[in-house]
């Protein structure tokens, strides 16, 4: 822990002597800055996707969880009586906010995509639908089902579970994929920086050899590379993050209906999260370069 704090102190304060012993490198510097920038850009959008799908899953879950449908299939003569019985049951059930029978026009509209606009709903044996809005706590589903079966044998309570679950599962999978993408981006950043660090270490083999021979410890040599790559990754990631945030800000604003693509952005305190990406890139670069440097130095006498 003490060594780590010392490394951080040196990283932040800088060590001009250690810095200048390694000559400025060209392509590895540009490669690191570009990689960190590009990866940060992608990470911001993955993060936005993860947060948006999370919000979507929550919304679908909340909205669908608060509504249910009672479907009544009964002979013509009993339909009205069973509907009234169901409404009475629902009105006296705790956890039910409201319940109403869908009109013929509403039912026709629901069936219109499949049967066209001229469907004679009143002449066909179509089940009667009752829309149920639940309170936040919701009813005791099993108890309600038992009461409905006793009062109206043709009534079936549907809490939308079989619709809701796949939708929520899909949104959750998307969120998982986005999180996995962020992890992959972090690993790829680490791998790219390791490659760049290895290239820089190989290009400076003579410098390292001279430093070892004049009595430099591994930490002294590693520090020069680690600090350089950490700062480059941080700066690159800062530029990438800012560019991506600008892209997110310029996205069309989310519609009230919550269209998925237009809702791809940050809300509230979530805006803080992308600002952490440059620091994460710096941490990834710090450990990648440190590991690469010590691995290389271990092979030298």
């Amino acid at each position: 822990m003490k060594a780590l704090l010392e490394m951080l102190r040196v990283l932040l304060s800088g060590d001009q002597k250690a810095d200048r012993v390694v000559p400025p490198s060209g392509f590895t510097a540009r490669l690191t800055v570009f990689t960190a920038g590009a990866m940060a850009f992608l990470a911001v959008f993955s993060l936005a996707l993860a947060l948006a799908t999370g919000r979507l899953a929550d919304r679908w879950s909340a909205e669908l969880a608060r509504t249910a449908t009672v479907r009544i299939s009964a002979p013509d003569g009993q339909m009205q009586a069973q509907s009234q019985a169901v409404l009475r049951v629902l009105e006296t059930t705790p956890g039910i906010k409201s319940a109403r029978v869908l009109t013929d026009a509403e039912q026709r509209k629901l069936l219109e995509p499949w049967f066209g606009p001229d469907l004679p709903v009143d002449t066909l044996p179509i089940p009667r639908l009752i829309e149920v809005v639940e309170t936040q706590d919701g009813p005791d589903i099993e108890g309600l089902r038992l009461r409905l079966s006793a009062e109206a044998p043709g009534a079936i309570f549907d809490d939308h579970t079989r619709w809701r679950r796949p939708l929520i599962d899909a949104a959750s999978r998307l969120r998982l994929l986005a999180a996995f993408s962020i992890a992959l981006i972090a690993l790829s950043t680490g791998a790219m920086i390791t490659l760049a660090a290895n290239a820089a270490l190989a290009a400076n083999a003579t410098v390292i050899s001279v430093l070892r021979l004049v009595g430099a410890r591994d930490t002294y040599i590693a520090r020069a590379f680690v600090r350089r790559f950490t700062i480059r990754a941080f700066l690159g990631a800062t530029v990438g993050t800012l560019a991506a945030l600008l892209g997110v800000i310029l996205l069309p604003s989310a519609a009230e209906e919550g269209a998925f693509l237009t809702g791809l952005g940050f809300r509230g305190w979530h805006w803080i999260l992308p600002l952490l990406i440059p620091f994460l890139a710096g941490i990834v670069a710090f450990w990648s370069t440190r590991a690469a440097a010590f691995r290389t130095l271990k092979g030298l006498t």
Partner: protein
Amino acid sequence: MIELASAAYSYGGGDILTDLNLRLAPGSFHFLTGPSGSGKTTLLRLCYMQLLPSAGNVRIFGNNVHEMTRDEVATTRRRIGIVHQDCQFLDHLSLTDNIALPLDVAGRDAEAEMGNLKELLSWVGLSAQANALPPQLSGGERQRAALARAVIMSPDVIIADEPTGNVDWEMGLRLLKLLVELNKMGKTILIATHDLNLIRNAKSQISARVLRIHNRRLQLAGADL
């Protein structure tokens, strides 16, 4: 200071050096000679831990090289001044910065020791080249700069590999004079060279032991030197 006991070094299955026995006493002056490819540089590298013996023991300042950590190797090297045949400088740093490098890596303030540094540059005759980059220096200047870097930490031992190999006779004598001066200050010197005239010249000034590598073994050179 440096002690080799039945030390050997093998590479790729073949023996490069075998049954090496050597003890560098404090303040001693040793020459190491032998034909090209005989293993002089290898022996020197064993002495400053760039190579580890494949058999036997090498002890530096009383420590077995096989038991030293990497940090201990680094700090031990600060007590050994090394002059390479090819000098090995950091070409992007000025001569002054190169000579001050051992101070920097040891965490000492080179700025505070600028007085010593200037004195050292003057001692090796390189005051005018203080700000020059290594590629701008001649062979002799590079050798003298390497010697200055080797002694900046006031090491106990100075190991030089063909320090006069790339310079003319006059410059070789000048370098030898510097090494003799260091020896008179109490430094232990080990020089690998195939220049027998240089050895003869040194023996006329100081008491030096001459070692020779023959058939991969180290032996005391005969009266022909």
